[in-house]
């Protein structure tokens, strides 16, 4: 079981805060929506990811526990 990022694309409104807080895993597409690198979150990246999820104004960024 690893922690991974996922976006709720219906809730996402392209604020882009997540990409600023976690550039290691999140970039923005040409319309400003997050493109997620699905690599597992390890070490301090996990803390950054959780902070990014909390900072999302629409709660569209999810840190999920998923089976590999």
């Amino acid at each position, binding site marked *: 079981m690893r922690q991974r990022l996922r*976006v*709720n*694309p*219906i*809730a*996402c*409104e*392209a604020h882009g805060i997540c990409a600023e807080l976690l550039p290691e895993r999140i970039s923005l*597409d*040409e*319309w*400003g*929506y997050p*493109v997620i690198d699905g690599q597992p979150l390890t070490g301090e990246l996990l803390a950054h990811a959780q902070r990014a999820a909390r900072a999302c104004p629409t709660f569209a960024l999810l840190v999920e526990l998923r089976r590999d």
Partner: protein
Amino acid sequence: MSFDDEPSSPRATPPTAALPRLLAGIPAHGALSLREHLALHGELPTFAARRRHGAAELIERIELAGLRGRGGGSFPTGAKLRAVAGARGRPIVLVNGAEGEPASFKDRALLQSLPHLVLDGAELAARAVGTEEVVFGVCETATGALRALSDALAERAHRRRGAARLRLTKVPNRYVAGQESALVSHVNGGPAVPTFTPPLPFERGVRNRPTLVLNVETLAHIALIARHGPRWFRELGIASQPGSSLVTLSGAGLADPGVYEIELGSPLSALIDAAGGLAGSPRALLLGGYAGAWVDGSLLGEVSLSNEQLAPYGASLGAGVILLLSAQACPVAELTRLTRWLAAQSARQCGPCLFGLDAIANTVERLTMGTAGADAQRRLTALSALVRGRGACSHPDGAARLLDSALAVFAEELEDHGRHGPCAGCERSSELPRPHSSSAGQSSERRARKLVSVR
């Protein structure tokens, strides 16, 4: 009663492994009545006497048969039944007759002509998961199907006690309305658009209850597997996709387009022959649906109809759509129409789908006009990769699949349009079936009449 491989109820005709199966007894006009249906197929096995045990046996039977969903996803039906039967709470069965795919008529045809086969399947599915409640969702434009289904429900109203309670609801005519979570949302009183998952419908669906969503054709197969058993079912088809399947065949130059029952794994050429043959080779085949894949027409002779056999061509059977594009048509013009239509069918909920499919349609349009610049094809490849997997449903993935296959199969024509703009063929009217509409109901009903079987 026991529920082994031997049918336990009287049957007017012995089960034969050959085709037609679903389409046996299909009437030339109107629907097969309940009496005619029972005379043909026999009573439904009443294995609900020892309910829990009986239900488990039906699920096992469907698992052994290897039945896969016929709505396009090809998910193992037995696994779906088991998941819903094992979920917490009282389940509900939701029958998917939305058929928003413009080139598909098979679910309409089945409901319109043989509603009792589908109703049998719905009752069986309800018993298998331990519920009496069934909701039918049928496309609002499928007027013939809606009429036949409500007549059939009235015919069955006075039948034995304990039968399932069936309710009929009209589904808005839009492409994504047939997506499972969209159908659930519609039945729950919300808009008929996909929702973010999980929870999946089998966990929490209609009124938050575990919901078994099955396509109408899948139910018709269940009705026959319950009667004749898994061994009989597997006498047709291939190991990875047993049984027969309904397909909708269309295309310019075909004498008899329409809905056919085929053996899974049978050659496409046999189906074309049954439809009156084809003079010359088509430019391309569109397989699966509007979000399916293009295959070069020169491969017609080697293509067989199963997901396993279509995989090397990057295609799948999807909901059974087979469309032939003639050599006279302009594939680039058709692609322009398709990508524009797919963009318009976005539920406009997810940014990458809303903006991405629009960007794809715009780029294809400019490419057709010869104004897109030299790197248009590269731009399209990038857009396709960019939208994949980024919607709440698989609509953008389907559009990307269609686009990628077109970029490969029509590379030459795309290159030519990119340089020189529209060709002579661009002026021709589209060979693609028009999207379903109530006013077109008449013509779609006529087309659905063509029901032949191909082994």
